[in-house]
């Protein structure tokens, strides 16, 4: 099982194409949504921008560790967020509520050109 971010995966963290986050409810119903930012903390950890989602975190292929509403990671993500926000008009609110820190359990390559 692969659980480390490699150099060749780094472009996926640039945020040009939004990442997709999938969760599953207790009764097994999946939910798919865009997230504007997946921030690479180190080879084993990522922070997911929390702007939108309020749903309970269930089993996903990351392990939920903490939620940060201030600090270095949060501030760095806020800067990226304002950059993303500037590309859109005012109807979309890009306000970072928190950085959700996760440990990577599994990385699967879906497609490699």
């Amino acid at each position: 099982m692969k659980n480390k971010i490699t150099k060749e995966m780094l472009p996926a963290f640039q945020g040009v194409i939004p990442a997709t986050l999938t969760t599953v409810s207790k009764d097994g119903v999946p939910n798919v949504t865009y997230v504007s930012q997946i921030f690479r903390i180190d080879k084993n950890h990522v922070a997911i921008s929390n702007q939108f989602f309020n749903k309970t975190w269930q089993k996903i292929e990351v392990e939920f560790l903490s939620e940060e509403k201030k600090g270095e990671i949060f501030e760095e993500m806020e800067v990226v967020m304002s950059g993303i926000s500037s590309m859109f008009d005012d109807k979309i609110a890009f306000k970072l509520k928190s950085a959700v820190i996760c440990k990577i359990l599994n990385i699967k390559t879906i497609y490699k050109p």
Partner: protein
Amino acid sequence: MIPDRIVEIAEASGFPLWLAVPDSCNICEVVRATGFSMEPDKKRLSIYLPESMLKLIEPHLKMKVPTSFLMASLADFESYQVKKELSEIAEVSNSLSKKINSILDPTIETTNSLGLDGSKTFDYLKDPPTASIHIFAPIFLNKLPNPERVNVYNR
């Protein structure tokens, strides 16, 4: 009646499409779909997958498995979601397959306009779709302009 906006998205608006299915451990497999269509009376939603994507989720595609289907714009995050149990898996005819594949062109153009290589990014979806995942009525579309405030788009 299907909302006009959904018809536009289905035909040519360049929305990336996602289909999520949970595995036996309640961890999701999520794959990109090539296209989708909806019957005018909203009694059937068909989601079209190329062979490579189908292979990834095939082990989890059991009848009545809950699915989540997302249409989400790259340009402004305009999003619509359908959550419904799987009803049927069918093969796609050659003529339909070719028609569906042309839906990808606007998505590639949108990606190019973002300064990326759209053809390369979506190369894996250029294989003609071989399977369609059917979801039967009633279909509820949730509009998610901001998922914090989920609005029912149409019933």
